[in-house]
């Protein structure tokens, strides 16, 4: 075990990102797909903070990007859950396979 640095952070966030991608591919329930998206967004935030901490420590821009991503993720989650609840009301299911009317 060596002292953690930038590469450890980037390995961690890459692994977390692809865990989220795996969940997004395999899940077919809208709520669990939303959870995978949250994991992906968090790995992006971790990347921004790691770059800000280890490479561009004379600026705070990575930190601001993270703050704005968190705000936008909160708005996105709220809208997504409103859509999910509306979908459940009309279809009695939140499985993506059952919501295909828009296709035709």
């Amino acid at each position: 075990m060596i002292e953690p640095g930038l590469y450890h952070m980037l390995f961690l966030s890459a692994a977390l990102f692809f865990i989220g991608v795996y969940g997004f591919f395999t899940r077919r329930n809208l709520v669990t797909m939303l959870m995978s998206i949250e994991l992906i967004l968090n790995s992006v935030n971790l990347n921004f903070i790691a770059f800000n901490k280890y490479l561009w420590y004379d600026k705070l821009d990575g930190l601001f990007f993270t703050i704005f991503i968190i705000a936008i993720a909160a708005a996105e989650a709220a809208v997504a859950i409103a859509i999910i609840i509306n979908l459940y009301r009309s279809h009695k299911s939140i499985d993506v396979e059952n919501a295909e009317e828009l296709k035709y």
Partner: protein
Amino acid sequence: MSGSTIIFYLLAALTLVSGLLAVTTGMIFRAAIYLLFSLIGIAGIYFWLQYEFIAAVQIIVYVGGIVVLIIFSIFLTQQAGEELPKQKMGRQIFSALAAFCGLALVLVQLVQHEFVITNGKRIEPTVANIGNQMLGVSDGGYALPFEVVSILLLAALIGCIVIALKSKPETE
């Protein structure tokens, strides 16, 4: 090997293991709880990096806001104790392969890449520095994006109410 190194590896293991469990478990409520632990692990890593403000925001917004919202939506849309249907084996293998190939590609690029480190003076991420730059209108200030995000949040608020509104029966 110092204590801080051990803490980093523990936090990273907590984040990755609970993230993996969150996307693989069959019970949807457990998936939400594992997601909660994964987000707490990330907040711990922000604390470890000494970005305390971001860690606090992470705990307030993600752990306190989004996960609670997700748990509420699970309660509203899921039958209690019902397991998610198992996915096809082929799809699982294909997804794992795709994710693994992507990860391998990124890691290979990462190992080969040489990062350039700036040689400026370090700015500490204290709340005073963050606040001054966040609301600054001079060069490098973030006042305009701040206002845009507040408009976005207002729009999301109104949009949620409109989408989730129960439509009244039509009256002639």
